[in-house]
């Protein structure tokens, strides 16, 4: 039994926190928020690349650090805490993971080094309609090796170089690699609740597409990618929730009402205790998810869903109640609460909402019980 980060992982975490405190103060986040033309912070992206984080789990032979998933979790927690406005999740949790899960040797050799070096930004393009992603929803199709169709709500779709796209070829749903700089691709920026992260609509009209993984395995691979991404995202959410609790705590210790700090009132004390409870439960579930990254199978499916459900709840609760603790100040643009309130929704929805993950979790439990 060893249910904690190793000393190396703890020191990586410390390093990541210090790095982001220096390179990603909230001014960097607000720089993207306030400037509609700015879709991510390029300086931070470059710096993060130089740290080697983009290739954390990419094998050394492909230019990565060859670390384990747990190491990436540690980085994710720091990124979530700092609201880093960069296409890290899309590129690393989704596209690099998809390549490592399903890519051919040639595909890995071509793309992983570029991702590790920060030269290629990725995006994951699956949904077309509101509601949970289902196979029936997928209309994008391949004809003569060319992709035609529209993908909505593609995070980082405006800035990505490479998309992993879910599409149908005849009756078979598969994943495809599409270079967005090629022809037949139109992009349109979509306005979202969290302008610190870019989202686009991608329209493909006969764009060149290359099969990723086996034909017909598109849904299964998508789920496998989502499971891994869910664990990393859960660490971002826990990092965000931690920060919300800290902000609420500091404010509660400095803000006076009726002659004493508001942190001395039980209404605030117990609200923040509940916030702590939810965050610890999320952290423990996320740890289990981190462990399961190395296990795969049903363990990972259950752990990923648990981590996502608990972390989505924790971050949302922390974000909204931290804002509430700040009172009127929390409702202003200039105080940072709303950045977390927005990001809690962004992270809670980007890999699908908690409701769908609860259904996935219970289905897996049923399957395990039946086995």
């Amino acid at each position, binding site marked *: 039994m060893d249910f904690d980060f190793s000393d190396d992982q703890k020191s990586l975490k410390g390093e990541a926190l210090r790095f982001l405190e220096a390179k990603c103060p909230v001014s960097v986040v607000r720089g993207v928020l306030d400037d509609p033309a700015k879709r991510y912070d390029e300086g931070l992206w470059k710096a993060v690349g130089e740290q080697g984080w983009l290739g954390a789990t990419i094998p050394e032979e492909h230019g990565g650090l060859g670390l384990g998933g747990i190491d990436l979790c540690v980085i994710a927690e720091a990124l979530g805490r700092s609201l880093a406005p960069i296409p890290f999740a899309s590129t690393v949790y989704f596209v690099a993971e998809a390549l490592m899960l399903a890519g051919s040797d040639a595909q890995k050799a071509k793309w992983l080094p570029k991702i590790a070096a920060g030269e290629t930004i990725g995006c994951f393009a699956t949904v077309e309609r509101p509601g949970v992603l289902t196979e029936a929803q997928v209309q994008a199709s391949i004809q003569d090796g060319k992709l035609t169709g529209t993908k909505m709500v593609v995070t980082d779709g405006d800035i990505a170089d490479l998309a992993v796209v879910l599409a149908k070829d005849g009756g078979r749903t598969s994943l495809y690699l599409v270079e967005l700089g090629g022809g037949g691709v139109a992009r349109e920026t979509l306005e979202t609740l*969290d302008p610190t992260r870019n989202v686009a609509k991608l329209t493909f009209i006969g764009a060149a597409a290359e099969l990723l993984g086996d034909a017909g395995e598109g849904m299964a691979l998508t789920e496998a990618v989502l499971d891994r991404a869910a664990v990393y995202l859960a660490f971002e959410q826990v990092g965000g929730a931690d920060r919300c609790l800290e902000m609420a705590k500091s404010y509660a210790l400095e803000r*006076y*009402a009726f002659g004493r700090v508001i942190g001395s009132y039980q209404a605030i004390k117990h609200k923040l205790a509940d916030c702590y409870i939810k965050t610890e439960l999320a952290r423990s579930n996320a740890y289990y998810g981190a462990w399961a990254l190395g296990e795969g199978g049903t363990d990972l499916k259950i752990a990923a869903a648990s981590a996502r459900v608990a972390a989505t709840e924790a971050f949302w609760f922390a974000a909204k109640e931290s804002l509430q603790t700040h*009172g009127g100040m929390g409702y202003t643009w200039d105080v940072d609460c709303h950045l977390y309130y927005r990001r809690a929704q962004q992270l809670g*929805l980007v890999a699908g909402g908690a409701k769908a993950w609860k*259904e996935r979790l219970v289905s897996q439990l049923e399957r395990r019980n039946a086995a």
Partner: protein
Amino acid sequence: MDFNDTPEEAAYRAKVKAWLAENAPKNRANGDPEAAEGMAASKAWQAKKASAGYAAITWPTEWGGGGGKTWQSMIFGQEESKAAPGLSGPFAIGLGMCIPTVMTAGNDADKARFVGPAVKGEEIWCQLFSEPSGGSDAAAARTLAVKTGDEWTINGQKVWTSGAHYSDFGLLLARTDRDVPKHKGLTMFWIDMHDPAVEVRPIHQMSGGSNFNEVYFTDLKVKDSQRVGAVGDGWKVAIVTLMNERLSVGGGASGSNTGQVMKLAQDISTLAGPAAKDAGLREKIADWFVQAEGLKYTTYRTMTALSRGQTPGPENSIAKIVAANVMQDMASSAMELEDQFGILVGANAPLAGAFQNALMGAPGLRIAGGTDEILRNIIAERVLGLPQDIRLDKDVAFKDIPTGR
């Protein structure tokens, strides 16, 4: 129990409807008070109401009111909200809070000067109580008024002031004595919002909008005759203002908005099938529905008490706390149903982003006019009779109350 009008009520409603049909502006282009034409339309409407005795139905006719009953005012409000929605907005604070305070605590000259123009919509008022240091604690006001001869000099800052930028006058709570306990060192004044010593700055809200202002006073000179009530009686006067706020039961709680969620669910699938058939969502809809409808019927109970000439019970104190939390919960649940599309706002989002807008508005509703926490305290103390929180700021000179600064 009867939801229908009594014959007397029905007759009055018919008269009101006929008048509204005749007089309410057709094809109103813009009721937004932030735009010049919208404000002009509002002022014209208010003048028309005043001339027909509908501007302040329950006030005595000698003050420009209608000399009517509370139930008449409620019926007019219901019908007006259908026939001329929003137009009366800019006058609500003045007629609902400030002018009643002047009428109760002001001097005769002020009453004669201000009541008429306010009723007719010629002058707009705002309320200047909240300060940065005391959002929940209005009696902690620090804005300082110092007297020299017959004149007061005012310096300080107010915050969360609705309509300050289009107001002509403001009712200002200021500290006039820092050496006595906080509730005893306050005095109320009216001020001219057009005075150059008054600066109004909009507050940029997290939702992007600006419905409130900060108001700064730099050596604002005010005559002693602008005092409303005695020196040191400011808190007593403020309570009159705030009581009037609590009594101004609006056109009624609107009931549930679950229909919108049901509409959304018809077009969306979950993993198990159509969302409209999802038992989890259906249970939530039922929960929201009974809360929202419960509030609506609670308002009816209050209106019934008013109709019968009784003082309403405390039932209505629960409205905001329930409505705001249902709004936030419903919005985030609906977005969860939209799944990845939930993050979109505006035209690309389902139902044109209605739930995303609600999500961004809800935190404000949970805070403005008393946070959830303050309201629970008020219910516990004033309704249930539980003890006040232990106060460290009583019987202490204001200047000695801990503030962390």
